[in-house]
């Protein structure tokens, strides 16, 4: 399937502004950084979580711990894939028990990734509260999951693909919608 770029949704300053706003919203809701931790979902969620943590440090002057979560072992479609997806390590360098955890991902779509992430987090301990921050919410939920912080709501058709490109992985910061050609 060849894909064609249909539109650019966010450019670099747009992503920056969205992440700064999310950082402020997190602080406002949490009333500070006490007991707060960010957990990014691999791969791009981790980079976004790190960027939000940098902003929290700029605003509040305190360091918020960041973890990386690999949800592969918790996916509900494992047996449907032709071969086992590549497994990367989960690295949560703090105890999740009693904390406010903000899960961070790039795109929220069906909600199945978040369901898997919730299970994975719960296996590591009992957080006080889990919230969800995403850069793009493109709709089409298959599970009752709702984000707490959204960079941009983006109504899409199912056949379209939302691609978040980040400089850490792709050398550039932009969000584009792609659609199959023809």
């Amino acid at each position: 399937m060849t894909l064609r770029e249909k539109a650019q949704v966010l450019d670099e300053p747009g992503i920056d502004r969205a992440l700064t706003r999310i950082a402020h919203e997190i602080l406002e809701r949490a009333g500070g950084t006490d007991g707060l931790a960010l957990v990014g979902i691999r791969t791009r969620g981790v980079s976004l979580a790190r960027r939000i943590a940098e902003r929290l440090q700029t605003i509040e002057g305190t360091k918020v711990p960041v973890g990386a979560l690999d949800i592969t072992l918790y996916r509900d479609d494992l047996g449907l894939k032709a071969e086992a997806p590549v497994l990367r390590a989960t690295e949560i360098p703090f105890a999740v028990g009693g904390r406010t955890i903000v899960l961070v991902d790039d795109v929220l779509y069906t909600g199945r990734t978040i369901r898997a992430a919730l299970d994975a987090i719960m296996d590591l301990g009992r957080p006080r509260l889990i919230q969800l921050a995403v850069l793009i919410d493109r709709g089409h939920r298959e599970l009752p999951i709702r984000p707490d912080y959204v960079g941009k709501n983006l109504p899409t058709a199912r056949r379209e693909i939302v691609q978040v490109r980040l400089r850490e992985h792709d050398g550039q910061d932009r969000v584009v919608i792609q659609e199959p050609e023809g």
Partner: protein
Amino acid sequence: MGLKRKDLLEIRSLEPAEIQTILDTAASMKEIASREIKKVPALRGKTVVNLFLEPSTRTRTSFEIAGKWLSADVINVSGSSSSVVKGETLMDTAKNIEAMSPDCVVIRHSASGAPHMLARALKCSIINAGDGMHEHPTQALLDLLTIREKRGHLEGLSVAIVGDIAHSRVARSNIAGMRKMGMSVTVAGPPTLIPPGIEELGVKVAYRLEDTIRDVDVIMMLRLQQERMTANYIPSLREYSRLYGLSLEKLAGARDDVLIMHPGPVNRGIEMAPEVADGPYSVILEQVANGVAVRMALLYLLLGGKPAEA
């Protein structure tokens, strides 16, 4: 790249990239062992049968823990408790087990090639947990993982495999794996226990332990497999131990950062002095811990996707 195969039967048919994938996946699996709740749902609803027709504690337990931590249902069948003692053939036992729809059969058998026979006959995945004197691929993979963890890489490292090479499936699998990963291997032992023509596997042969261990990164001691010896291969255990046992004195000639490995169980005082087995260079217990991670990786990689079309 993933594993595009139904079974894991031997190291010699694995591509280096496949070995890399298995080791990387195993390294990621290690995190689960450090958790309070050591269980992930990856293989929920899958059934693994451990068919161990030859004695084993370590490997069987390791596969059992690996399966259970991935949420698979694990059933153990041992030689003494199976219908094999009533005269049932391996093929009949396997066909009967397959009728119960397992997703994987892990087999240990005293006959070389038994796992290959099952792999041809059964639709489910087969993992070789040691077949006769042929191969013990999961042991070689856990050894590679342990070395890579300690040294950060495999390529360019040198290894001495010492002892009963002739009867050792561990040696055969390790030689194949280590050569594929760019390591150099020297085997050492009494001439009676070194199979003729082993140089064709790309290894050097030595007969004096002291010379062999001087400059290597890893010393892998093997168990003297007296149960497999049908003739007198060594004059006496005492003499073997004096010439080929790893003592503190002999170890003094080795490198300061050498790793000492043993696939277990150790015959203390024969192939290795107790103070060496428990000493600072020994990574024997790390090998055991890595065994679980490697077996989790294999179960995940073989069963995590849709079963291959038969």
